[in-house]
């Protein structure tokens, strides 16, 4: 909390010194980053911290192509139209070489559209919507984080192993929630033709009437519940569910709930035994992750969140893509990013050439209580490439112009 406070006051701005006249070739490589810093601070502030950390570390090792990295961040206030305007500022005024960022799916799509229309490279970090690299994919847009499909796919796989036959779903009523539920049902039914869906709840995003929703789910008498609620909606839902006994003797499979951003606020009411996707944080004991987590703690005096991992990996992926391209020319960048491999704290990943989707993987596990806080247990990491559908399927989704 203290750290974020200081960083908020630190304001958006540039990291490296903004020189005016620089000889071509030694000028820094500028990354223009746009995100919902004021409207979704819980996720984006740790994310920005980690980006800064990654930029500092890469620069300390001599930068990329012999040039330093420079990060310029902007706040889109949760409005895609603002993001597009600021993208214009970053490209035309700040002369950035790479556009990056977005937390919200619609901001990611808007920036992707901007990139396509203006022929600029855009690397999305956090947006989850599948269409960003599939139906609405384009030549200039890449995306790092595992998509809604990937997260739903692993949960469907886990759900198929359960005895539960009668499933109910609860999801915020907008694109993310709707596609999460759609994929989950489709993939689960494919594996388990015997399951039935006994009902759906669609609270409006950010305004869940938790008591009534829980009561309605209870009345459906499901064996299993698939949940896509997150943030304050999730907190309200879990509390009412706990008190009303909704989760007792039932399987719950839940998207994103294992991310500390959403699990931590639940405190001692964090549910036990939910199958979730998320991020186990400092439990990960690979050398790479330990080093990263230690650096992060030292630098910000806070534990790394899921957003931190995404921010850190995003910068790493950009550095690798630019290095592979060997130039900041946009067409060369596109070719360079395609198939670019990069290290992240959780393993080596790649931007797939076929759909520009990063293969950053998904942690899946169970929630448990440790002391007064929720944690992920029995977790495992599934490489993103194992979660993605085959190349032919993906090619069929992407517009021809995206190649």
């Amino acid at each position, binding site marked *: 909390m203290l750290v974020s406070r200081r960083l908020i006051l630190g304001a958006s701005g540039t990291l490296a010194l903004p020189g005016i006249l620089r000889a071509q070739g030694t000028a820094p490589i500028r990354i223009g980053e746009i995100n919902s810093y004021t409207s979704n601070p819980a996720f984006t502030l740790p994310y920005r911290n980690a980006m800064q950390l990654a930029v500092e570390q890469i620069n300390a090792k001599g930068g990329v192509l012999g040039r330093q990295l420079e990060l310029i961040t902007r706040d889109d206030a949760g409005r895609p139209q603002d993001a597009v305007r600021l993208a214009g500022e970053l490209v035309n005024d700040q002369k950035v070489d790479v556009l990056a960022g977005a937390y919200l799916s619609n901001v990611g799509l808007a920036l992707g559209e901007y990139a396509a229309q203006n022929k600029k490279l855009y690397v999305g970090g956090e947006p989850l919507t599948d269409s960003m690299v599939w139906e609405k994919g384009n030549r200039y847009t890449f995306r790092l984080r595992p998509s809604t499909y990937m997260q739903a796919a692993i949960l469907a796989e886990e759900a198929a192993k359960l005895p539960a036959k009668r499933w109910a779903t609860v999801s915020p009523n907008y694109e993310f929630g709707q596609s999460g539920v759609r994929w989950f049902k489709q993939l689960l039914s494919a594996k388990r033709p015997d399951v039935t869906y006994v009902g759906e709840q669609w609270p409006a995003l950010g305004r869940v009437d938790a008591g009534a929703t829980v009561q309605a789910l209870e009345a459906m008498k499901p064996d299993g519940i698939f949940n896509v609620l997150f943030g304050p909606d999730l907190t309200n839902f879990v509390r009412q569910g706990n008190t009303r*006994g909704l989760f007792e003797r039932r399987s719950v499979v839940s998207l994103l709930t294992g991310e500390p951003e959403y699990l931590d606020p639940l405190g001692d009411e964090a549910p036990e035994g939910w199958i979730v996707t998320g991020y186990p944080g400092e439990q990960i004991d690979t050398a790479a992750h330990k080093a990263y987590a230690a650096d992060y703690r030292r630098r910000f005096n806070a534990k790394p969140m899921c957003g931190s991992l995404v921010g850190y990996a995003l910068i790493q992926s950009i550095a690798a893509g630019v290095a592979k391209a060997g130039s900041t020319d946009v067409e060369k960048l596109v070719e360079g990013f395609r198939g670019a491999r990069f290290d992240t704290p959780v393993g080596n990943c790649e931007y797939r050439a076929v759909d520009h989707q990063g293969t950053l993987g998904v942690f899946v596990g169970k929630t448990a209580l440790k002391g007064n806080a929720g944690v992920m247990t029995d977790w495992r990491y599934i490489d993103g490439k194992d979660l993605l559908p085959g190349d032919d399927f993906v090619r069929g989704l992407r517009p021809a112009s995206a190649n």
Partner: protein
Amino acid sequence: MDSILPQLLTGLAGASSLFLVASGLTIIFGVTRIVNFSHGSLMMLGAYIGWSILTRLPREPEWFVLGVLATVLATALIGVVLEVVVLRRVYRAPELFQLLATFGVVLVLQDVTLWLWGPVELPLPRGRWLRQFVEIGGSRFPMYDLILILVGPVVLGLLWLLMNRTRWGTLVRAATLDREMVAALGVNQRTLFTAVFALGAGLAGLGGALSLPNSSANLNIDLAIITDAFVVVVVGGLGSLTGAFVASLLIGILQAFGIVLVPKITLVLVFLVMAVVLVFRPNGLLGRPQAEAREATVAAPVIRAAPPELRALGVAALLLAIAAPFIVGEYYLTVLTDACVAILFAVSLHFMMGPGGMASFGHAAWFGIGAYAAGLLMQWIGAPMPVGLLAAPVAAGIVAALFGWFVVRLSGVYLSMLTLAFAQIVWAICFQWVDVTGGDNGLLGLVRPAWAHDARVFYWLALALSVGGALLLRRMLYAPYGYALRAARDSAARARAIGLDVQSLRIVAIVIAGAACGLSGAIFSYGKGSIFPTYITISHSVEALLMVLLGGLQTVAGPIIGALVYTGLADILVRSTDLWRLVLGAVIVLLVVAFPEGIAGAARRLWLRGREA
């Protein structure tokens, strides 16, 4: 169905929570006539302060009660500060400026809260008694929700006693009916207003603190709750406590059963209820007709033809705008393009709000309908940009005609709230009906034709359309129709007595404003290349209000100046500081206090100094 009883009780608990917030809002409105946008922020502060206090206390019930009471006092105190520092200075300003000031407060408090408590949501750890339940109809029902069910009526009862059994309450009721009369009775209005605001704020704080065991203190409370609270207050009848209570029950119960029966449209349901109630009861369930403000007839100054100096200035500005692409860089060109859109957006709102006298809180609806009309035509039949630009005003105009039929039956704040409800319905459709509108992923690929792809060419196009549109609307204002519209606003009774059809005049104003606004939405969409439901949010509607009011409601140049100032200010602030909401909010409050007639209005006053208007 054995779940009817628990669902009903759940609805009642929700109703109680709603009532706590709405009661404060309606009391404040009743006495001060201020539409307090910052009421949701007060509830949010109540939640955060409650969290800070309660987490430091033992978890037993008696400490909980104590902590909640302390929170109520703290929020009431904040209310006092707010009233003394900001609102007291704007009571004399026109009603809508007060709303503007409270919106500035919302922005400031968003950043202050983030700064004090950080970005992470803060749920209150629940003691064991807060997790208890009772068996009702075979289901477990939270004990705390039972307590909430009781709190609503108890608070209503206490407020009733306060209002009907104390001298202070009598004064408050009298002030609700007739503010001037209370002043004439020699009552200190200042103290009364401050006390009323403190009471309202305290109730918001109570609502915030009592929401903690079921949810968390988070940064989204303010805007989420304020629309619900507005709906309750309007449905109940502005200023009526009992009305607010009845409306809370109605909405709470409908919500609870709506979730079971039509889970996908709960968001729309609330606003539909409000629209239906207002159509049949234009003053809410238990509201009285609003007394016509006594100063209304002298409020609006004469609109005269612009003096030659101003015309020269306008022509110079236009020439400068035409030459701009040769002067500024590409980014500022997009900012200027946005400014062109903002001008048409603001001018169209001004048309129905200034001369038309109908303040819309949902102007972004037309913007969005125009945008989506262009986008959907592109998606369905591949309509090119010229077709989209033509279809947008037509579509927005047609919807405006249907909607106008309902709106012109109302007046004042009720009218504004119906426009808000309508905009929320449009927003919800765009946000939730993913199959058609693409949901929040929006409509992408709105490509400009080759001839307009160049940023300069598109800027000139936007400039031509928006200035052309603005001049056309201005022309109408100086033509008989515009005069008749103004006549209907100045005095509806007189207008009818000389044979004017007031309702038709107003519907046509809404159609014209809607069409012009729809055009601005389409221009904007082609500029950005994509369309999103965020074009229709409340905050976008409020931006239109900000532009018009900042510029000045009673001058034709006002909305143009307001649009330019606001666009420039927002752009600079967003790019220079993470605390842009704080600064923008503070600037808005300062402007409202310094220029209650808007920037253009203030300039006009300076210009006319020493002369008769």
